[in-house]
């Protein structure tokens, strides 16, 4: 584990100059600087439940009514019974037994409420979750990971600071996702290193297909010699040339450094692969072009999220700063249940339960949990009947029949924004703590201690030692890391 002092000693000129770089300028008011925030975490892992994870089917179970042909949709609040966890007074939904056993290591927020954007569009809410700002914006707003990458850099200068695992950007609403999966105006140095398929992560730090390591190194050596053999004089120096050569060096260093091994899941003992991805056959390759529709997709992707969690652990150990692993947003797939909510929620819980719990246990075993903040979240929740918030309903997007005749209508298919679960582990958060309360009758809305995105971000930033009032200058105006600098750290979440 690299300490700050080690980092500064080892940090290459590239990292230091990037951090010290004037452009865009950092703006920190005297007031914010005086806050003198002591960080409790060095690394953040966000586990992104893309598509809208229903709170009453996961971490905030309510009364369960089993399926009965002809039942009314209003008859059920949860479609699973609840189970005990390691913490008295906190119950989870059936299917999350592994996570239930590690609840005593973390904090559960039940009252995350999404913004009111007038219409439920997943990508817009995801944009707001990841940038802290409602789209559209007049400037290219940076992703949470990019802000952290720009402000802190990686722990290990060789490793990309910001890694994004599990999301293809050329499918579904890919264009809308690209709009926030970016460093925006902060500059591409701080953008995400994208790894859509964790089983193939090693390839992104290996020579491109068909090239042996020997040839790759030879090519690098040849390049240096060719460069030296060419004419000097007016090509000898300059900012552009130095940036290019330095960046090429950095890219090459990643490959040849021990940190590159972190990307290779094949180096992990097979029993660990099984713990993170129970249904996955080692060596099977996820097909990037696989049919994305219907049940076939979900079968084909078994284990992908789990392996992503394992990769995240390895990258955290190797010195990345912000790692996001997602179950992947594809319209109508995964958590985005417009039908078959019950069966799909069961499948999603199978996807996440073992690996997330294992991630927490592994970090704990390696002595990393205290300094690694793990955040599991989603853009909003779900309900059988309500679209939006009870007082701020939005256009219904899913037909709900008066009587449920088929299992496919049994579940949470509408988009509910007045409650939501965020599960946090490590990085200084309280252990075995429950924050907020939701109603036990429909609407199962937030009653106490509402949490909004700028405050959640403020909590993450302050855990890392970053002020929620930090701003970067763009077009001569400050752009704050939390909305207009208004984010407030939620002190109760921390020990």
């Amino acid at each position, binding site marked *: 584990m690299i300490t700050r002092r080690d980092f500064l000693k080892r940090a290459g000129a590239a990292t230091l100059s990037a951090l010290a770089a*004037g*452009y865009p300028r950092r703006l920190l008011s005297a007031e914010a600087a005086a806050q003198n925030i002591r960080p409790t975490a060095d690394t953040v892992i966000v586990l992104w439940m893309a598509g809208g994870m229903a709170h009453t089917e996961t971490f905030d179970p309510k009364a369960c009514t089993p399926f009965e042909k002809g039942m009314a949709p209003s008859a059920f609040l949860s479609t699973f019974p609840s189970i005990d966890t390691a913490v008295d007074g906190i119950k989870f939904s059936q299917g999350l037994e592994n996570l239930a056993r590690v609840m005593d290591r973390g904090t559960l927020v039940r009252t995350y409420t999404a913004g*009111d954007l*007038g*219409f*439920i*569009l997943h990508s*817009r809410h995801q944009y707001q979750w990841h940038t802290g700002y*409602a*789209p*559209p*914006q*007049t400037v*290219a707003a940076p992703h949470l990971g990019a802000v952290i990458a720009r402000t802190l850099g990686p722990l290990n200068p060789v490793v*990309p600071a910001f890694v994004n695992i599990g999301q293809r950007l050329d499918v579904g*609403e890919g*264009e*809308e996702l*690209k*709009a926030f999966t*970016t460093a925006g105006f902060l500059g*591409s*140095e701080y953008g995400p*290193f994208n790894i859509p398929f964790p089983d193939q992560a090693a390839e*992104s*730090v*290996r*020579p*491109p297909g*068909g090239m042996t390591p020997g*040839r790759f190194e030879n*090519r690098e050596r*040849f*390049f240096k010699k*060719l*460069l030296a*053999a*060419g*004419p000097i004089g*007016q*090509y000898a*120096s*300059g*900012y*552009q*040339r130095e*940036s*290019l*050569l*330095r*960046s*090429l060096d*950095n*890219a090459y260093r*990643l*490959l040849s450094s021990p940190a590159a091994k972190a990307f290779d899941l094949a180096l992990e003992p097979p029993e660990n692969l099984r713990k993170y991805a129970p249904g996955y056959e080692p060596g099977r390759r996820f097909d990037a072009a696989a049919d994305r529709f219907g049940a076939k997709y979900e079968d084909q992707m078994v284990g992908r999220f789990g392996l992503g969690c394992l990769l995240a652990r390895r990258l955290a150990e190797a010195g990345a700063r912000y790692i996001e692993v997602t179950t992947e947003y594809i319209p109508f797939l995964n958590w985005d249940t417009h039908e078959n909510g019950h069966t799909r929620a069961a499948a999603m819980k199978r996807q996440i339960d073992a690996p997330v719990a294992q991630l927490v246990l592994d970090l704990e075993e390696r002595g990393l949990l205290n300094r690694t903040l793990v955040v599991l979240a989603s853009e909003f929740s779900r309900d059988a009947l309500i679209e939006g918030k009870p007082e701020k309903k*939005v256009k219904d997007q899913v037909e709900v029949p008066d009587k449920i005749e088929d299992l496919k209508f049994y579940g949470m298919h509408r988009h509910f924004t007045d409650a939501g679960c965020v599960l946090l582990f490590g990085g200084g958060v309280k252990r075995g703590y429950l924050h907020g309360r939701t109603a036990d009758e429909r609407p199962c809305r937030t009653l106490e201690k509402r949490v909004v995105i700028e405050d959640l971000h403020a909590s993450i930033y302050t855990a890392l030692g970053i002020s929620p009032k930090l701003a970067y200058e763009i*077009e*001569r*105006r400050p752009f704050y890391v939390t909305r207009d600098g208004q984010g407030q750290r939620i002190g109760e979440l921390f020990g």
Partner: protein
Amino acid sequence: MRSPVYAVVCAAWSAAAFAGLTPEQAALLPPASSRPVVFSQDIKPIFEARCVQCHGRGRDKGRFRLDTRESLLQGGDSGPAAEAGKSQESLLIGLVSGLDPDDMMPKKGTRLTAEQVGLLRAWIDQGLPWEAGVSFARPAPLNLAPPAPKVDVSASSPLNPIDQMLEPYFAARQVKPGGVVEDRVFARRVYLGAIGLLPPADELEAFIRDGGRDKRAQLVKRVLAEDRAYAEHWLSFWNDLLRNDYRGSGYIDGGRQQISAWLFEALATNMPYDRFVAELANPAPESAGFIKGIVWRGVVNASQTPALQAAQNLSQVFLGVNLKCASCHDSFINDWRLADAYGLAGVFSDGPLEMFQCDKPTGKIAEARFIYPELGEIDAKADRAARLKRLAELMTGPQNGRLPRTIVNRLWARLFGRGLVEPVDDMEQPAWDQDLLDWLAKDLVANRYDLKHTLEVMLTSRACQLPAVDLGEAVSKDYVFRGPGVRRLSAEEFRDALGRLTGVWYEKAELPVATNSIRAALVPADPLALALGRPNREQVVTTRAAAATTLQTLELTHGQTLADILQRGAAKLVESNSTPGELVDHLYGSALGRTPCAAEKQLAAELLGEPVRPEGVEDLLWAVAMLPEFQLVQ
């Protein structure tokens, strides 16, 4: 009947009340300064630091304007601000004294010190001597009036007009520009600057061998005349500015519209710039996408409704004005006000547009108007079609000197690496040589807004043939022009250069262009293009970040996209059955415009092997493509 005593008390009371203070408070006023007050030293700085934000530069809180002595004396809603000779009774003094806790000025920021109040008192007592010509009103916008350069450019001089104007500039700064660069460096600059392609090796050789005296000028003309290549290159520049792309957010539900076909045609036919702007501001369906903007489903912040997007984008791109801040509130970074942004938005909106401040309704309706009323007016009561027609007239009419200046500045920035005005989106600032900017703008207008003409003038100048200069990371205020800046190939230029080198282009163009060499601008962004900086055009982009980053080089060293191009290219080159020596010569000629020196040739030949190995060719291609000499335009 009121007693005389009462009258006196009332008079005293009202005198004190006139200053807003009770008699007790008035007694606490700081005394007037005893020395003679100098307006420019003592008073002007106080106004500029503490008052002008709300009462000057076009702002008039409480309908009080500090602009001139007359407007100060006249006052605003609360009455005259001062009475000459009577500082104790002057409202201004009472307010800035801070003695009345309910009525203090300035409303925001630090109080005036006792010394400053004393100076103001003395100034008022001394009769408010106001230096002639000083005004706190909004200054006349720079770069707006029709350009009228003060220098005389001689048409009979052998020197290019740009060089004529730079002579005194260089002399004044003791800059001795070097000799012009050699032919192959110049040719590379011209081809890349004008059409975004590397000079073909055979054309380059012919150019170098050519002994003609004006061969460089002829080269520029020839290259600019390649209409399709020109369009394919400048398509990216305009796509960035006009938020146009084949894919992007907002298309998925019909809230956004492409202008690609119209734009390509406009570039390929070298549509005059005034017509170009008019067709965007007052569009037919095929060019309507720009002012349509992105219509989002659901609720958006009031500052991002389509009418406001149109106002922001039109003014940024064509007038170099930033209305983004003023779309929510009176801007803190420039003099634009909420009413200005909404006024322009009102021109585009379908119905009456309610003004929102910080996303909260104000109840006021924006009256449609142009942001520079000095250029002319738009009848707010006319229908939308008529308003847009009038807008197009104001944008492109002879009275609008901002339009040509903004575009020539962008073109100059493109070719020389830094604009005459920087940032290029903030045109209300002086240029580093005002006459040069004005002359270029006037010349564009005089040549019927022919952008190729302006490019030709720039490319044939001696200035554009000077050795390249290292411009560093950020734009510095101490910048002195010494020559074109070293710049890096854009994402599209890099890909197209590889195309020239390898013969590997794209498969399928998004536009019906008759060509087998499909260039990067004709297809949606691929991972390589994105990594190298082709932007997501959800916002207007006028400058791309230039320097290399590690994420970019990771894509260049590990990425499959580039690897595939090199593999396919190598296969083609191996098919040509050249010897290693011939191949190296060919690659260096195409990529760098020169012959390899002995050391380079030997290294490369070793790598290629005999007979030539495909892997050797791939690796040589890669290495050459990574050379600064390849990626940078010197």
